[in-house]
């Protein structure tokens, strides 16, 4: 669904992402892990064409650089780490923004657009809040709302940058369960940066570990999440424990 070939991104003189080659299959959830500044966000932004890149990124067989912004937005929905949430915008207006790629330059939302968004609000338990302002919503509600806007694009690919960073423990699992449920139900392909390595191991089908702009290792979670590799990449002492039901738990430890 997404393929990278020799993808490099430079910010002026610094190289943020270097010669990445990989691919994400349709329906797969690939997690990007790595320390701060490793290039996770840059990779997501390159797919959404928010930063220029060298090399080739293809989505659904078409090179990203050759697509119109609108065509790309119908294929790829991007949720930044800290979405801009205008406090005096209503929930309904915000979700409708997701229909932008389907609306002409001077056009307005049609009945279909409004029906799609109403349905999304219903399925994410936000329907009763349609007329509320964003400033009145809780963190968990905002998280669902941002997802609803991304899903309103009806794009087969979902790019999520740290979707759980602002949430408490319970809401984190809720948010990822929601993404997983939507992915299965709608056949979405998900590429997401994930900070929490334990949750990354539980939710992603495959992980790409980035370090200083390069793919350090890729594979199934239990192949990537090893104590040595994590220690090298993150420069931290960690312990990887397998729980009774087979989940990997990554525990940071103090240097001694």
């Amino acid at each position, binding site marked *: 669904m997404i393929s990278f070939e020799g993808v490099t991104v430079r910010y002026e003189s610094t190289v943020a992402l270097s010669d990445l080659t990989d691919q994400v299959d349709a329906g797969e959830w690939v997690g990007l892990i790595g320390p701060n500044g490793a290039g996770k966000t840059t990779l997501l932004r390159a797919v959404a064409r928010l930063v220029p890149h060298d090399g080739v990124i293809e989505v659904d067989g078409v090179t990203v650089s050759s697509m119109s912004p609108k065509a790309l937005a119908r294929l790829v929905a991007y949720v930044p780490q800290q979405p801009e949430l205008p406090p*005096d915008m209503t929930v309904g207006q915000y979700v409708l923004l997701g229909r932008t790629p389907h609306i002409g330059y001077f056009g307005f939302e049609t009945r279909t657009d409004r029906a799609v968004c109403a349905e999304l609000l219903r399925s994410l338990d936000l329907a009763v809040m349609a007329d509320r302002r964003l400033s009145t919503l809780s963190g968990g509600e905002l998280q669902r709302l941002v997802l609803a806007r991304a899903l309103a694009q009806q794009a087969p690919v979902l790019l999520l940058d740290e979707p759980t960073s602002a949430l408490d423990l319970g809401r984190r699992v809720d948010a990822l369960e929601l993404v997983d449920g939507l992915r299965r139900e709608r056949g979405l392909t998900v590429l997401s940066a994930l900070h929490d390595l334990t949750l990354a191991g539980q939710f992603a089908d495959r992980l790409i570990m980035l370090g200083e702009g390069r793919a350090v290792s890729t594979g199934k979670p239990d192949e990537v999440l090893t104590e040595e590799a994590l220690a090298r990449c993150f420069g931290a002492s960690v312990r990887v424990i397998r729980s009774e039901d087979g989940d990997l738990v990554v525990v940071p430890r103090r240097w001694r």
Partner: protein
Amino acid sequence: MLRPVSARRPVVVALGALVGAVALGVSMGPADLSFVATLRVLLSHVPLLHFHSGVSRIDADVLWQIRLPRVVLGGLVGAMLAGGGAAFQGVFRNPLADPYLLGVAAGAGLGATAVIVAGSQLSELLPLAAFAGAVGAVTLTYVVGATVGRQGATVSIVLAGVAVAALLTAIQTFLQQQHAQDLQSVYAWILGSLTVATWSDVVLILPYVALSAVVLLAHRRLLDVLRVGQDEADSLGVRSSRVRITIVAAATLGTAAAVAVSGLIGFVGIIVPHTVRLTTNASYRVVVPVSMIGGAAFLILADVAARTVLAPSEIPIGVVTAFVGAPFFLFVLRSRRVGRST
């Protein structure tokens, strides 16, 4: 089904205010003329109708040649300043943005001052010079801002606007000090006035204001998309840099035309759009049209105050917009805050 944002009710209310303002604007003045007389004069000017107003020739001329152009011009200028302000606040995502942000006022001031100090035989050129100065200043701001900063970065453009405005104001002040005998005329122009409004002024600015208003209204949905910032707007398939330049160009053209005939009337571009936001809806689908109508009504009323409070002498309209507008705006802000916290 989600309800679409509807501007209907606020538009109707604003239109009501505008009709009231126009009625007051044409009825108030030294000559005692009723609103009915005004309507009769108006009807007599409708082509093909052959209606005779029955109003005396002098009264008819007072209405048709003095009051009406002044009211219409005030309406156009007010609509443009308020609509332009709303658009600039959306483009720069800054509540303090007004149509003068990128140097329109400084450029127009310099152009007007240059003509005034050059001598009265050039006074026909004053609107043209002010217009050229305003458009030139914003162009300079955009060129400098775009080369200095990351392409399309609004912060560098706003900073460039501050620098360009400071530079042009310095030149304008210098010119003004060198020609102290013209100080009064320069000062009077800068404070803004509709005193000498004529139909030819209306005709002069109408194409620019109409074009600008159409473009701004056509972008009201995209202004809502820009509220989530450049990155997210781009990721939704909008070429946000291009949209912003289009809106800024349109707003600049209209604002430049408005200040060219009215001088630098301040504050309208900030208080009108914010009053609309605070009392109705923050969506640009409401803010843009209602600000235009409300801005027209507001400036017509401000002009009524300007020419009646100290009649027969007039107060500069810019003084009225700030003196009446600021407390009213604070009142709206305060009542809204209280309303929200309870």
